[in-house]
């Protein structure tokens, strides 16, 4: 064999010096690696920057909504006006004219105000809820009758917005929701320490309202709760059972292949399609009520099921075959093998998948629009059949409204929604960490 010749006359490859060859290419390789690291870092930084921007924006807008302006008004609970018969009959007490009390209180603060329009402007400082607030107080404690109290009444949304500095004084009077005389009164109240921002309990206590200062997310929260409860109760057991059956018991044939492909496809179906399906099947065919969390839960179950099934199957396949063999070798039946060993080991994975599926369902709005969970609903739902809306839909509804106070509340509701999402995802991570592979 003639070793000196190579096809093109150069030294044959096996005689070249590997050290110099590698060294020559080394700089290029390192540069490529550095470049790649930079691409990655840039991408991550960019992504994080957007997340931070989004959060900052939402928090900046939404945080003020957690405080609400209140005005301290001296209220005389006049026995003659409230309870002329003196029976303390709750029906009579409920029917009394509390608006008059509020008006009287405000006039006591500003005795010099005269005329129909200025008086109306004065009344508009406090929310229309103020009279109901007084009614609730009296009904809760009839002892108030005959006394005079300094009471913090909920300010109107316009006052709240102004106090939060979101209305420019320099604007022409006609262009602002709050008039010159009102600004004057607010300044006086401020100077007297009779205006204050308090924690906005209303936001968490009441349902939707046309008046921003009275609007809360309680209704949407309860709607989301009932809807997700239905979703979980349906999709978790069915999803787990399906995953177990398909993975552990079903024969592997064409039918199970078709089912598998279809489940994977279902997970990719746009959610609005599930909404249309729910409308056609649950409402039009089965005649279930519109806007009900029950139907919402059914629709979201359809959406969540494939996710849970896929996650469940992945969790089951990750249980090592040696555990199955050990159980079967001991004479355990198939069901015992699954029930005693495989399922407990797969459960954390299944739960993680389910929680992530539920978090997705919590954020879902499109399919719920289809089944009427988008209505304006004031009452907080108390059951699975009461008309309700859910948090993301509430956000969608509020985001449409022009009032500054609703803009604020939209962001506040987004913050609450995000908090729940983060909580759920955190729970999923915790579960995964806690039950990491133990074999």
């Amino acid at each position, binding site marked *: 064999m003639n070793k000196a010749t190579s096809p093109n006359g150069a030294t044959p490859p096996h005689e070249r010096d590997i050290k110099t060859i590698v060294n020559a290419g080394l700089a290029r390789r390192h540069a490529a690696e550095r470049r790649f690291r930079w691409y990655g870092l840039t991408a991550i930084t960019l992504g994080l920057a957007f997340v931070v921007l989004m959060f900052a924006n939402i928090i900046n807008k939404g945080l003020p909504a957690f405080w609400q302006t209140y005005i301290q008004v001296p209220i005389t609970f006049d026995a003659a006006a409230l309870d002329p018969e003196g029976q303390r009959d709750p029906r009579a007490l409920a029917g009394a004219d509390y608006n008059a009390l509020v008006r009287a209180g405000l006039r006591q603060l500003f005795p010099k105000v005269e005329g129909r329009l200025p008086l109306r402007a004065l009344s508009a400082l406090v929310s229309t809820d103020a009279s109901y607030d007084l009614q609730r107080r009296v009904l809760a404690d009839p002892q108030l009758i005959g006394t005079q109290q300094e009471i913090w009444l909920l300010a109107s949304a316009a006052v709240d917005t102004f106090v939060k500095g979101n209305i420019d004084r320099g604007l022409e009077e006609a262009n602002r929701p709050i008039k010159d005389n009102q600004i004057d009164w607010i300044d006086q109240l401020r100077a007297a320490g009779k205006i204050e921002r308090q924690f906005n309990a209303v936001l968490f206590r009441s349902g939707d309202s046309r008046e921003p200062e009275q609007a809360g997310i309680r209704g949407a929260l309860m709607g989301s709760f009932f809807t997700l409860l239905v979703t979980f109760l349906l999709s978790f057991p069915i999803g787990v059972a399906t995953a177990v059956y398909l993975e552990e018991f079903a*024969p*592997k044939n064409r039918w199970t292949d078709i089912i598998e492909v279809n489940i994977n496809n279902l997970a990719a179906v746009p959610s609005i399609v599930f909404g249309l399906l729910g409308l056609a099947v649950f409402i039009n065919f089965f005649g279930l009520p519109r806007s009900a969390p029950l139907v919402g839960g059914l629709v979201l179950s359809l959406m969540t099921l494939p996710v849970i099934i896929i996650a469940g199957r992945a969790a089951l396949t990750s249980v*090592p075959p*040696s*555990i*199955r*063999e*050990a*159980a*079967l*070798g*001991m*004479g*355990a*039946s198939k069901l*015992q093998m699954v029930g*005693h*060993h495989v399922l407990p*080991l797969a459960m954390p994975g299944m739960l993680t998948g389910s929680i992530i599926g539920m978090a997705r369902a919590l954020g879902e709005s499109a399919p719920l629009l289809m089944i009427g969970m988008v209505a304006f609903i004031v009452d907080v739902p108390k059951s699975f059949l009461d008309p309700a809306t859910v948090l993301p839909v509430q956000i969608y509804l509020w985001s449409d409204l022009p009032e500054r106070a609703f803009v604020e509340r939209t962001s506040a509701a987004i913050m609450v929604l995000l908090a729940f999402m983060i909580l759920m995802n955190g729970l999923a991570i915790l579960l995964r960490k806690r039950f990491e592979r*133990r*074999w």
Partner: protein
Amino acid sequence: MSTTAIDTQIALNGALNRNAPIRQSAGAQVTDYDNRQTVGKITVDNPKMACREVNVYYGQKHAIKNVSLDIGANEVIAFIGPSGCGKSTFIRCLNRMNDTIPAARVTGLIKLDDDDIHAKEIDVVQLRARVGMVFQKPNPFPKSIYENVAYGPRIHGMVNDKAELDQLVRDSLERAGLIKEVEKRMLEPGTSLSGGQQQRLCIARAIAVNPEVILMDEPCSALDPIATAKIEELIDELRENYTIVIVTHSMQQAARVSQRTAYFHLGDLIEIGDTDQIFTNPRHKLTEDYITGRFG
């Protein structure tokens, strides 16, 4: 499978099914590599299990070809052979573990005492309680040591109360030579033990249900020499009460622990006989090549 004239010459000492046709060459030495008929006496006087004309197919693949042999009561029989020859496949026939592989198909007769293990009235659950198994890789359940051993008795309803179960768990661990090491840590996970201890835990788990036969598929291949020695010692002790089938890739191990040895080659049972004879005086050229280390 075709039956040849040789079949009729066979003396079926103690075989359970005297009519089952068996391939077995009668001659003394077989030098022809292509002769895949079993050399040696497949039968024993006192059989615990008997296999006749067992074939296993994985789909199209013929993994075990017409294998017949007896497993004597209270003996340790070793299956040896190059990897991929079907030792695991065959041992898994004995407790029908191959049922769990959808592609696997087993034909032929396998008897445990007088019961055909494939008969309708024999449930695999019962069979596997009678024929326990220890696997290549120690596979304790990810539960406590106690729970590992208690599992079998629990699912089969062997005990009446907690005291009985406690006693049974202790006895089993004692027999598996593990009690001293785990006495104080019964509630710790079985997976926290060392490899050798885990394998002895698996043996304890298997003997807790008081099986008649214990199958061991390369039980020491994942263990160090000291742990291996302990298991081998244990196997020798267990022989008193159980029949043991062991697959091993170590010929020294086969020589140390077994009384009879069967040599498999590409799905055929090439030679079977007393362990001493197989290792000192193999009669088939393939066996000789294997034990002298010419391949394997």
